[in-house]
């Protein structure tokens, strides 16, 4: 599943550590989400979408099925 977390983060000029601090997760988890190695839980996905003010279905694209846990 592809996502636009990296794209949105770089648009706002945030580092991975800063985004992780805002979302309450570690920097490594932000890296894993951006690289689609980890699929966030539903609450975390909504937190990400609300933080960037983007609908969750736009932030996480289910059309592109990839690897993730």
């Amino acid at each position, binding site marked *: 599943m592809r996502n636009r977390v990296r794209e949105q983060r770089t648009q706002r000029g945030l580092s991975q550590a800063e985004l992780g601090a805002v979302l309450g997760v570690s920097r490594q988890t932000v890296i894993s989400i951006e690289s689609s190695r*980890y699929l966030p839980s539903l609450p*975390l996905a909504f937190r990400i979408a609300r933080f960037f003010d983007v609908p969750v279905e736009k932030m996480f694209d289910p059309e592109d099925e990839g690897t993730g*846990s």
Partner: protein
Amino acid sequence: MTSIRNRRLRAPTMMLAAGTVVAVAVGIGQGWGAATTMAVVMIFAAVFYYGAGGRDSGFGALIGGRADERQALIRTRARAHSRTVVTGATEEGARTRRLRDASAAPSTGDHRMTAESDGKPTAARRAARPGHRSRRGSRFSHLSSRSSSSA
């Protein structure tokens, strides 16, 4: 029960507590020299855990008690995997023990009957033969004579 507020101290404290119990058990069972060695190892491990708990890594987050959902998932999987390994090892050890005990046990169940190494019959086997009479008499003949004399 009191709780440890500093999450980074939880793992080292638990390790020291468990290490104390194990060291006392080793001291009682194998001597206090081995227990001292174990205690020193556990103290070094606790110091290492405290240091690792402050690092900016997945392991540090797990040890330091600040794991997020992904790290908690990794911890859950690791625990499940370690339980599977420990259960398998325990079953294999029990099976090996049973096989070893079964191969070591005598076939007749009587050690005296299987103690022949030179092909000659043992004293027990000679005594079991019908009509055998020992020169010294029965092993318990003195008891029977004593009881008959007292009666």
